[in-house]
Structure formats: structure tokens, C-alpha cells
């Protein structure tokens, strides 16, 4: 297995508050890692540091063997290699769905428009949105918008896909269509790190579950281990609150 991502001793604080307190984590190629934990446990911050949207206070990050936490790293180049999907979709409202999907291919990878659009239409067709390619995002349902956002994130074939609470803003009946798409991406071998509150989904799809508590990894293992027989008392407490 080749390693896609390695985090070593990641520290991050906002003012007096330590949000991440020495995180070590390695993610292999084709692996799906679910980050679980209470709000404020540092899941989203961890994803943002990987994408270099947050400056590290300490620690190192390797992306496919390259240290991306050095001052000489060009953040734009790193971000082009990582796909991100957000809780609130963050589609660009002034661009058509197709333009949203092809933007990075055209502007970052400098792919000719025709080629980028052929690829974009193929992706939209797969999620059943080819008919809406020329529509603006506000014409789509929340579930359709989020699936378009996922397709936008994978259009450039990133080495790593980060999903940040991607179903939290959706109406319950729209969650399934989004999670089904993530399942498909896993089946294709996409390497995924996702912060999620969907425990059933994490159990179902993740190869590894990482439980974060107060900026530290409290426990990690296969879904069967973490959900079935949690070793730590705080993991059990968190899961009992979540699973009822």
C-alpha cells in the first residue's frame, strides 16, 4: 500500500485555545478514513490544515511522500491535488453547474474547454444531472447541489478527497443520494478522509474510524472495533450519546 497522507504531531491553536494537540495519522491509498467526534473536537480544523487553509503551529504533513508543511510549499499547487467538499456545498452561484464542475480543469490544469466539458458532462451524467448542466446551482435541490459539489471536487482526479460534514446541511430525505455517491467513489478506489456525524454511514463505508476528542486521537480502528467494542470510556460515552 502506498501512503497518500501522513500527519505527524499536528498542533493548532486559536489564541489561547488548543484545537489540535499533536495529531498523528497516516492514510493509505484507496483507504476511507472517517473522523468522528463531538463538535469542537477538531475534525474540521484537521481537514483544513491538510488543505493548507490553516497555518500549522507545529508538525509536518506529507502528501504522497512530499512534505507540504515547509515554507517553500506552494499552497495553490497542493490544493490542486486535493479535492474538498463542504457542509454548505459552496457552489459558485454565478456559474452554471457545468462551469462549476469544469472550473478547476480549465483554470488550474489548463485543460482545453471542450475536453474539460466532455469530462464534466460525463461526470454529471453519471449522477443524473446532465440535464441540469447549463442550469444555475440555485435551481437544484440540496442533494443535487451537494452531488454536483462532489463531482466538482473529483473532476481533476485529486489524489485525496476531503469531505467535511457533507450531509449535515441536508434534509434527511436527501442524505441517501449523497452518501450513495460517496460509496461509488470508494468503490472506484478514491482515497477519502471524511469528518462525519453519520455513524451508520461511517460504520458501513469507512475502512478505519478515528475518534477525536479535545484535539487528540482518542481511539482508532476498524468500524467493528470502534463501534462494536470501544476500548476507551470517552468513546463509549460519545457513541452512547450518538447512537442512543
Amino acid at each position, binding site marked *: 500500500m502506498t501512503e497518500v497522507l501522513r500527519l505527524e504531531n499536528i498542533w493548532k491553536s486559536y489564541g489561547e485555545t488548543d484545537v489540535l494537540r499533536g495529531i498523528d495519522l497516516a492514510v493509505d491509498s484507496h483507504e476511507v478514513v472517517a473522523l468522528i467526534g463531538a463538535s469542537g473536537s477538531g475534525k474540521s480544523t484537521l481537514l483544513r490544515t491538510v488543505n493548507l487553509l490553516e497555518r500549522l503551529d507545529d508538525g509536518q504533513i506529507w502528501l504522497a511522500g512530499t512534505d507540504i508543511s515547509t515554507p517553500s510549499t506552494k499552497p495553490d499547487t497542493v490544493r490542486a491535488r486535493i479535492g474538498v467538499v463542504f457542509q454548505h456545498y459552496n457552489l459558485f452561484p454565478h456559474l452554471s453547474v457545468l462551469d462549476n464542475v469544469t472550473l478547476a480543469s480549465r483554470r488550474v490544469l489548463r485543460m482545453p474547454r471542450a475536453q474539460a466539458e466532455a469530462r464534466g458532462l460525463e461526470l454529471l451524467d453519471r449522477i443524473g444531472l446532465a440535464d441540469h448542466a447549463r442550469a444555475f446551482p440555485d*435551481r437544484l435541490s440540496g442533494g443535487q447541489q451537494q452531488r454536483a459539489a462532489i463531482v466538482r471536487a473529483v473532476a481533476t482526479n485529486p489524489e485525496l478527497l476531503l469531505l467535511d460534514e457533507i450531509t449535515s446541511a441536508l434534509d434527511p430525505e436527501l442524505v441517501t443520494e449523497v452518501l450513495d455517491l460517496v460509496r461509488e467513489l470508494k468503490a472506484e478506489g478514491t482515497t477519502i478522509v471524511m469528518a462525519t456525524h453519520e455513524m451508520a454511514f461511517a460504520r458501513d463505508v469507512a475502512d478505519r474510524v478515528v475518534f477525536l476528542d479535545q484535539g487528540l486521537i482518542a481511539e482508532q480502528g476498524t468500524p467493528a472495533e470502534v463501534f462494536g467494542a470501544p476500548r476507551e470510556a470517552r468513546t463509549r460515552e460519545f457513541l452512547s450519546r450518538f447512537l442512543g
Partner: protein
Amino acid sequence: MIISLVSTVALAVVAWLTIINTPGWARVQQGFFNPEVAVAALPRIAEGFLLNLRVLLFAVVGVLVLSLIIAAIRTLRGPVFFPLRALASGYTDLFRGMPLIITLYLVGFGVPGLIGSGGPRIPSEVLGTIALVLTYSAYVSEVFRAGIEAVHPSQVVAARSLGLTHGQSMRLIVLPQAVRKVTPALMNDFIAMQKDVGLISVLGAVDAVRAAQIETSHFFNYTPYVVAGLFFVLLAIPMIRFTDWYTARLRSREQIGGIVS
């Protein structure tokens, strides 16, 4: 429908009777609304008005470019850019506070003074255009800045996450959304500018206002001013209607679907 028609006509008749029954009406009618003078002065004023149109065209383009640059500078973050930011905010303070007529005098007479008598002679309409651009860019840059700041930061985060540079994110994501948000306010500023274009006459450029002034002293009659004023109003009306229409259209589009930020 009928009631509004009747009340409008009634009001108009009352207003008209009130005006023509004032003691000085006959003299004012002769001095301000003289048809023969209007016809005689019309060609010169129309010719002058073409200059106003040309100045307006260049000023609009100049204002758009300069104000976007100023607005972009004011939204730069980081201590490195402090001098630029300070310069830009000083500029907007200065020219929003300064009366346009003083800016016109300072540029119109100051710049030729700096060049000296040996240098090239800059036409007064060019200097007037520069003064207009300086004053209105200060206002319009604030409108643009408000628009840029109204675009939700998550849009920039999404753009940067795709690997776009800061410049690309501004150009492709933030500015197009900002311009849409502020277009009604922007067009309002341009409507204000289209009438202030008449002020370049104080520098001696023969525009509609200056032409009207010449005709007025020629005929000893104020009708040419009224004619020149009508030209400006006729130019403003389509712009005002277009602004109203466009604003209404934006509003109705926003009501159809919530834009997720």
C-alpha cells in the same frame, strides 16, 4: 385607472393655473421659454452636448477601471500591503470630501501649471474628464468594496480549495458576484455623473452648458439654459428606467431560489 387619470389631470391644471397667474409669469415665459430662441440656440447646444457624451463615455470607462483597482487594493490583507491600503483609503477620503468643482479647478488649472508654458497644451475637456474620474472613482470604489465584502468568505475558500490563485479567485469568483450585487447602486452613481459632466464648462470646454451660456448672452435670454437642461434630463431618463428595470429583475430572481453561500 380612471380615478388616477382624473386626479392627475386635475392636479396638473391647478399647478398650471397657479403658475401662469403669478404676476411675473409673462416675463418669465419670455425670458426662459422663448420658442424662437430655443430653435436658434439648439444646433450649438446639441453640438456642445456631443462633447458631454464623449466625456461621459471616457469618464465611465475611467471610473470603472480606477475604482476597481482602488477597491481591490482596499481588500488586500496582510501588513505588507499597509502602505497601498493607506494610500487607497486616503484617496477615497480626500475625493469624497472635496467638492467636485474644486477638484475641477485644481486639476484644470493646476496640471497645466505643473507642465509649464513650454509643455504640451492639454485640452480642457481632457482635464475635466480626469477630475470627474478622480471624484467619482472615490465613490464607486466604495460601492465595489461593499460588493466584494458582501460575497461570502466561503466562496473564496471553495475557490482556493480548487487550487485557484488569489488573483483567479478574485477575478473569476468574487468580482463577478460583487458586480451583480452592486449594479443598481453603481448605475445610480453613473446617473449622478452624467449630469455633473456639465460642470467641465467651468474650465472653458465648449459643452452644452457653455454653449448655452454663450447663446444666453447673445440673445439676452435664458431659454438656452432650459434647452441644455432638457438634453441632460432626456439622457438621464433611459438610464434611470433601465436601472429601475434591472433592479426589479435582480430582486425577482433572488426570490425564486435562495443562493447558498
